[in-house]
């Protein structure tokens, strides 16, 4: 039972990472109607910058700051140079162009930093463990990730519900034409939203750096899960992204742990573990397919 709660905590932590990634992407899609496959590249840029700067400066926070700035900047450039020209175009043009961006970034990173993964460590002041559940010490760094996620969710809530800018963004998400008719500079708004999304992706990448291998192509591993979250939550909806991220995080984490246990009730040990592992790999996709069959537009569709 203790183990179950610990696994729930792990699911929560993965969910938070997914939320950081999907919040930006769902906004970009909701407002600009752009499918940006290169969102994972921004995550990678964040992780690489954080790793490099914190290695040379010895300060994790400095690395984090560099990652946020760099990913926002790269995001800005991406928007100005490529995506801005694609808003009026077919989704598939966006897919092809942003796929090109992925290739460019992955290979570029390999050329600059070399092929081997980079090193990034947990900052000293977060390297311990906390016994949140007695008998199961939990890494403080993971708790910090959960905290950051809660703060970001709170920030986004305040931004969208209590500031003028946030209202405009929300208005843009639900009705593009109206906001243009109100005389709001939609180009600037787009760029801002894109930079915000890039910043959040960079934050996720930098936070992931100490836990995961910082390597070229790391963005695509999380990109697919991010899209799964967005579609389950309902495209364009921050609230949906939050719910779906936690759902996907929990299913992904608990699936690997519970499914083999469950199958052991019916099957011999070895085949139960094998089948359990396979089913666990599929579980997120089964969840998505089930949700979409039940609600073809996701849990909280933002548009009519």
């Amino acid at each position, binding site marked *: 039972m203790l183990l179950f709660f610990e696994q729930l905590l792990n699911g929560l932590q993965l969910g938070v990472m997914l939320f950081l990634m999907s919040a930006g992407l769902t906004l970009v899609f909701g407002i600009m109607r752009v*499918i940006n496959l290169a969102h994972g590249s921004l995550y990678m840029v964040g992780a690489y910058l954080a790793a490099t700067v914190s290695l040379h400066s010895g300060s994790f926070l400095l690395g984090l700051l560099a990652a946020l700035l760099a990913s926002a900047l790269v995001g800005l450039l991406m928007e100005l140079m490529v995506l801005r*020209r694609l808003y009026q175009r077919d989704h598939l043009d966006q897919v092809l162009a942003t796929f090109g961006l992925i290739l*460019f*970034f992955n290979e570029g990173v390999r050329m600059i930093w070399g092929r081997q993964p980079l090193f990034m460590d947990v900052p000293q002041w977060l390297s311990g463990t906390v016994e949140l559940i007695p008998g199961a010490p939990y890494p403080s760094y993971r708790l910090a990730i959960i905290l950051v996620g809660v703060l970001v969710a709170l920030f986004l809530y305040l931004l969208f519900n209590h500031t003028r800018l946030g209202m405009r963004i929300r208005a843009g998400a639900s009705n593009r034409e109206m906001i243009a008719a109100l005389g709001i500079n939609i180009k600037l708004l787009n760029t801002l939203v894109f930079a915000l999304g890039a910043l959040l992706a960079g934050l996720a990448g930098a936070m992931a750096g100490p836990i995961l291998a910082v390597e070229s192509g790391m963005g695509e591993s999380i990109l697919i899960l991010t899209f799964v979250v967005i*579609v389950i939550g309902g495209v364009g909806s921050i609230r949906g992204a939050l719910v779906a991220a936690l759902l996907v995080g929990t299913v992904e984490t608990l699936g690997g742990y519970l499914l083999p246990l469950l199958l052991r009730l019916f099957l011999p040990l070895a085949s139960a573990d*094998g089948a359990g592992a396979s089913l666990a790999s*599929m579980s997120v*996709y089964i969840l998505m*397919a089930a949700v*979409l069959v039940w609600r073809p537009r996701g849990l909280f569709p933002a548009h009519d």
Partner: protein
Amino acid sequence: MPGSCVSRVSLVAACCALLLALLPWLADAFGDPYLVTLFSRILIYALAAVSLDLIIGYGGMVSLGHAAFVGSGAYVVAILAFHLQEGAPLFGGFLDIQANDQALLVWPLAVVISALLAALIGAISLRTRGMQFIMITLAFAQMLYYLFVSLEGYGGDDGISLWSRSRLPGLDLADNVNFYYVCLASLLLFLWLMRRLVYSRFGRVVRGTRENQPRMESLGFPVYRYQLAAFTIAGAGAGLAGVLLANQNEFVSPGLLHWTHSGELIVMVLLGGMGTLLGPVFGAAALLLMEELLSAYTEHWMFFLGPFLILVVLFAKRGIYGWICGGGDGHG
């Protein structure tokens, strides 16, 4: 002007067809037999891309799971051949299906199984549209991918190595030139079928649905059934491509079903020009040849391929097809 576009494309297509027909002789003349192998591969991918274009380009249904049908076609060939090699009965002998490597039997079976799979997946997926459709097709393809990864009897992630190509009476497929012509014939046959289909009443309904689904529905067309039929036919085409791919490589692995493989097929369609018959053929050829040439010059070839794709999107509408047309918005 559409007129000049059509004639230009016909000219290019005629030249390409002539080149393709003569390719084995040319390869012989240049002393480079590898060309035959390379172009067999291009033809196979062209076939897969053309089938994908039926749903993406004409039907407006963007599937990110098309590789699943390529993979299932390939696996049918491989599994039947595997049982023949190992002498193990299929399905533990429960079903009366014989292990086999006869092309005339195995190939149609593989195509039918791929089509059935497409019908099943399509029936569920077509309840959604847009981005949700992209993701639900991806979901089913990934489920199949993990299924094949977990099939230890069939090599799991390592895949299955075939001992030889399928047998066709009167034609030795082990010969690369013969196999090349089989690929060429398959592609031409499928193109011909697609042409008939696209310009039939069926094709008009499917295209009409892409433009304006509510209108087609209000006109009383059972849109869902039309779309499902198109999805199934595309799955069959992909299955045939899978059959040929398994024979070309004499090897199959779950990687064939992975979403990145589906992504490659989409890139081929877009690069060539979607919603055109010949565009995907150009796209497949361009992508594979570019990979081949760039990777010979630099190991960092993706660094150059990426921006090239972006430039194609920004400056060449309708991909290579549009470029041949001279930028006009020609429907092929």
